[in-house]
C-alpha cells in the first residue's frame, strides 16, 4: 500500500514537472505556425502556409547581418563574462573574507539597476573612449553586465562543493591553477555551463543598451526585431526564433546520439 502511494506520488511529481516544461514550450506552439503565416504581420496562417518569411530571413542582408552581429557580440561578451566571472566566483569562495563578500554583493547591482540608468552613464563613458557604435563597445558593455549572472550561478554550485577536496589537493602539493583546472572546475562545470548560457542570452536579447550606444554600424538582432515589431509585427522574427529553436534542438539531439553511441 505504502509503496503504491509512494509510486503514485513520484509519478504525479514527474507529471507536474513535465506539465511545467510544456508550459515553457507553449509559446513555441504559437511561434512555429506564426512563422509559416501567409500574412505580412505576426498572425496565425489564414489561407495557407507560406515559407516567405524564411525566404526573407535567408535572403535579407539586413536580417542575416543582424544575426551575424548578434552572434559575434554575444560570443565575445560571453567569453568576457565567463572567464572573469568564474575566476571571481572561485576566488571569492576561497577567500571568504569580508572584502570578497562585498565583491559578490556588489555583483547584484547590475541586475537591480534598470538598464536605462546604466545606459546613460555608459553613453558618456563610451563617448570619451570612442566606443560608441562599435562591436567592441557593445561586446564590452554586454560582457561586463553579464559577469554577475556567471558569478551568482557559479557561486551557487560552489556552495555545495566540499572545500576539503580542494584543500586536500593543495596539501598534496597541487598548484592553484592545477587545482582549479583539475579539481574545482570539473565539479562546478554544470554551473559554468549554465552561467555561459545566461551570459550569452543576456547579450543576445539585450536591447536597451544597444539602442543607446549604437546608431548606424551596429544593428543587432534585438534591434532588428524591435524595428520589425514597431513597423508591422514582421513575422520574420518568428522565423528567426523557430530557426534558433530548431538549431538548439538539433544540437541536443546530436549530443544525445553521440552519448548513446559512446555508451554502446
Amino acid at each position, binding site marked *: 500500500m505504502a509503496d503504491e502511494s509512494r509510486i503514485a506520488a513520484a509519478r504525479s511529481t514527474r507529471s507536474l514537472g513535465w506539465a511545467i516544461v510544456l508550459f515553457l514550450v507553449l509559446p513555441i506552439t504559437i511561434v512555429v505556425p506564426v512563422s509559416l503565416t501567409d500574412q505580412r504581420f505576426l498572425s496565425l496562417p489564414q489561407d495557407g502556409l507560406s515559407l516567405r518569411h524564411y525566404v526573407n530571413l535567408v535572403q535579407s542582408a539586413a536580417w542575416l547581418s543582424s544575426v551575424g552581429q548578434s552572434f559575434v557580440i554575444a560570443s565575445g561578451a560571453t567569453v568576457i563574462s565567463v572567464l572573469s566571472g568564474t575566476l571571481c566566483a572561485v576566488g571569492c569562495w576561497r*577567500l571568504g573574507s569580508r572584502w570578497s563578500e562585498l565583491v559578490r554583493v556588489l555583483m547584484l547591482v547590475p541586475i537591480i539597476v*534598470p538598464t536605462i540608468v546604466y545606459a546613460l552613464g555608459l553613453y558618456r563613458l563610451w563617448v570619451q573612449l570612442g566606443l560608441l557604435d562599435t562591436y567592441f563597445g557593445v561586446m564590452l558593455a554586454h560582457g561586463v553586465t553579464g559577469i554577475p549572472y556567471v558569478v551568482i550561478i557559479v557561486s551557487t554550485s560552489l556552495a555545495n562543493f566540499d572545500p576539503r577536496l580542494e584543500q586536500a589537493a593543495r596539501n598534496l602539493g597541487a598548484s592553484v591553477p592545477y587545482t582549479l583546472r583539475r579539481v574545482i572546475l570539473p565539479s562546478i562545470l554544470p554551473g559554468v555551463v549554465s552561467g555561459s548560457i545566461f551570459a550569452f542570452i543576456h547579450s543576445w536579447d539585450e536591447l*536597451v543598451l544597444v539602442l543607446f550606444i549604437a546608431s548606424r554600424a551596429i544593428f543587432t538582432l534585438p534591434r532588428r526585431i524591435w524595428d520589425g515589431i514597431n513597423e508591422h509585427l514582421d513575422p520574420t522574427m518568428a522565423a528567426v526564433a523557430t530557426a534558433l529553436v530548431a538549431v538548439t534542438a538539433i544540437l541536443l539531439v546530436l549530443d544525445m546520439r553521440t552519448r548513446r553511441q559512446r555508451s554502446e
Partner: protein
Amino acid sequence: MTAVAATGAHSGRRFFFANERTAYWLMVAPAAVLMAAFYFYPLVEVLWISVTEPKPGLDNYALLFTSASIRRTIVTTLRICTITTAVTIVLGYVVAYVLVHASPRAQRWLFLGVLVPLWISVLVRAFAWVTLLAREGLINTTLRDAGIIEQPLALIWNEFGIVIGMVHYMIPYAVLPLYASMRDIDARTVSAARGLGGSRFYTFRRVFLPQSLPGIIGATVLVFIFSLGFFVTPAILGGGKTLMIAEYISLQILDLLRWGLGTMLASTLVIFIFVLLAALAKVVDLKRLFGAG
C-alpha cells in the same frame, strides 16, 4: 579559514598560504576591475544626478514619501514581483527536482524544454501570449468551441496575464541554479534516510529540502531582483494599465527628462535590495547563498 591558518604553524606553509591568498585575489581581480571601470564608475556618475538635478539636495528622495504616483508604482511592482517569484520558485523547484531524478534521456528532453524559450525574444513572447490568452485568443476560442465556457475567461489585460508572462520568462533562471545545487546533494544521505524507514515525503522534507536550501534562497533572490526590471511584458500583457518601476524610471529618463527622479528611483532600488539582503542575512546564512563554504 582560521582553522587552516592555525594548523599551518610551519613557517614554510605560512608563506605558501599568503601566496595562495594572493593567487585568489588575482582571480577576483579581472572581474573586479572590469566592473569597477566599465560599470560602477559610469553608474555612480549617473546616480549622482539624483542629488544634483533639478537642484542640489534630497528633494528627489522626498518624493518617495509625497508622490502618490511613485507609491502606487512601488506597491504594484512589489505585489507582482512577489507573486511572480513565489510561483516561479515553486514551479522551478518541481522542474529541477524532476530533472535531477530523471533518466539521462529524459533529462535531455527536459533541458531542451527549459532552454528553448530563452531563444525567443521577450517581444515575440509577449505577442505569442496575446495570441494565446486574448478574449478572442486560441485558448478562449477552443474552450468556447468545446462548449466549456460561454463568456471568454479574463486571462489577459490584468495581473494574471502579467504573472503568466513573467513566470514563463523567469522559470529557466530559477531551474538552472536550483538544478546545480540539487545535483550535488549526496544521494547516499537520501537513500540512507529512506533505508532507515523514513517516508518519501519525510525524507524529502528533512533531508533533501534542507540541502537544497542554498539553491532556493539563491534562486529566490535572483528571480525577485530580476523581476523588478521587467517592463515590456507588463506593459503589453497588462493592456497598458500596469506601470512597473522599471518602466516608470525609463519614462522619466527617455521621455520626461526628469533624470533626477529616475536616478533617485534607481538608487532607491539598490538601497532597498541591500537592506533586504541585510535583513535576510539575520535569518539565514547568506554566505551559503554565495557559496562561501
